[in-house]
């Protein structure tokens, strides 16, 4: 957790009343996590590193390795390359299904990130692994879901399992997936006329 130095930098920009509770407990846990940051700079886990190396070897500058953690590899791809990268992940690396597709809205970057969590059932060496493939779509200030520039290529022809997940991202963030056979609403009411509700500018009443 926060070592002493970290706690101080945290409290500085914060408002004054927040400084008090943060400063108190910082003294106590300092002893325990002190060992952690020292152990952290160990080299990256080898197996996970080999997976990310294979992707980088194939695509070079087109992809960016976001993180390599225990059992998790994060790959970032541009929206025009994501389809090819996903195809390589399936055919070249033996991943076979998508567990989850989450959208993350970044209004300050004018982008919406779509994160695919890809796993494998058929390859037992990959049972623990999740490959986190993320890509970003352009974000519009006044969204017209399906009719504006917020579009990404669908991965449904590669991973059949994304079908409902991509439908959910479409209704919740307004990201239209080109090539998806069934871009209808799933959870929201059919007559929903407001902003896509999981965007940051859709505010909850009273908050």
């Amino acid at each position: 957790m926060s070592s002493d130095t970290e706690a101080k930098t945290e409290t500085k920009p914060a408002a004054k009343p927040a400084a008090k509770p943060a400063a108190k407990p910082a003294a106590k846990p300092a002893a325990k996590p002190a060992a952690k940051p020292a152990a952290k700079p160990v080299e990256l886990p080898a197996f996970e590193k080999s997976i990310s190396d294979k992707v980088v070897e194939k695509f070079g500058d087109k992809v960016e390795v976001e993180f390599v953690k225990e059992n998790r590899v994060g790959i970032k791809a541009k929206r025009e390359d994501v389809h090819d990268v996903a195809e390589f992940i399936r055919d070249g690396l033996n991943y076979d299904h998508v567990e989850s597709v989450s959208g993350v809205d970044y209004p300050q970057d004018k982008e919406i990130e779509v994160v695919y969590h890809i796993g494998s059932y058929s390859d037992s060496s990959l049972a623990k692994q999740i490959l986190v493939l993320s890509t970003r779509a352009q974000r519009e200030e006044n969204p017209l879901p399906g009719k504006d520039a917020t579009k990404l290529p669908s991965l449904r022809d590669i991973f059949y399992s994304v079908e409902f997940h991509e439908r959910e991202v479409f209704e919740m963030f307004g990201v239209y997936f080109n090539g998806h056979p069934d871009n209808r609403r799933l959870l929201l009411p059919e007559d929903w006329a407001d902003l896509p509700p999981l965007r940051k500018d859709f505010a909850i009443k009273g908050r």
Partner: protein
Amino acid sequence: MTAELPPGLAIQKVDERIMTLNVGPQHPGSGHMRIIVQIDGDYIVACDPDPGYVHRGEEKMAEYRNYITNIPHLERPVIHDSCNVLYPYVLGVEELLGIEVPERAKYVRVICSELNRCIYTMYWLAIYGIFLGHSTMFMWPAGDRELLIDLMEKISGARVTHAHFVPGGVRNDLPPNFEEVCLRQVNYFEKRIKEYAAVFYDNPILISRTRDTGVLSREDAIRLGTTGSVLRASGVDYDLRQKEPYDVYEELDVHSNVMKEGDSYARSKVPWLDMMESCNIIRQALQKMPKSGSVRVKLKPNPKGKGLDSVYKRVESGRGSLGCHIVSDGKVEPYRLKLSVGSFRNLIALPYLLKGEKLGNMPSVYWSLNYWPVEADR
């Protein structure tokens, strides 16, 4: 014109023989969702699941609450399985904050999570029984799950919605004498569920109704990305407690139940076998658990992550893998929280399985997916 109308109401040109039925959302055979089926005589030719009637915006709510106040509302998707729903969230927050959990707390969590798995599965089994018109199978599980609910009440003070897991451990230590009571109740519970075989699982009427209906092959189970009992009933040996052990599952002997048939019968039997496995795990955990010690690391108020960071943690819940993707931007609230739930992932198999089935088999196929509408909608 037709494109503007909602699904199920749109006027479509179809064969004269084909009739469209809306099953649900109030129908007892559908749970809180609507299944639009098109039938030709007695056979289903197409099916379109329409969930969302119990969508509560858990993910949006989570962005407005801090890491601690998120606990009670995040377990609402499945109140019977509340410990397992919270589990990936709690593990994720611990990784974000870099907290090490005391050993005893890990064992308490495993026990709670296994008890909850049984409580959920008994509820599911009760409804599966009544869906098939087997009212004994409704009464027995509904009564026997009280044994375990009593145990959870002793631990957490609440029958359901325990809010017992917190980042850093569990809320309270086990009550005195808990080990003995737990062992006694769990042993009796196991004896009871074994009796279900005679009345339900070996019942020729049940077998004739569920055998070879809604068959999901191994390849399709993988391709559709199904999880949990649906996947294991189709012959894929994948249980996260074995494959990616979290907390102390590594030290326990976990056996995963796999069946090859992939039909409704196999899908309904795997959760029942899982309950017996849960009883085994609870007994092992009670034995190996440190007899005393702390169960919670106190956090500082309003804990926050270290800058832009994201984690994806998953556990094996009563309905399969349950993942939690948390994106933190260094504030006290999560920037984005996504629950990837087993029910939602298994729903994709429903249109696939129902095609070509008889309409009368719909309830058994549908509920054998171990589907919980509220969880799927979040």
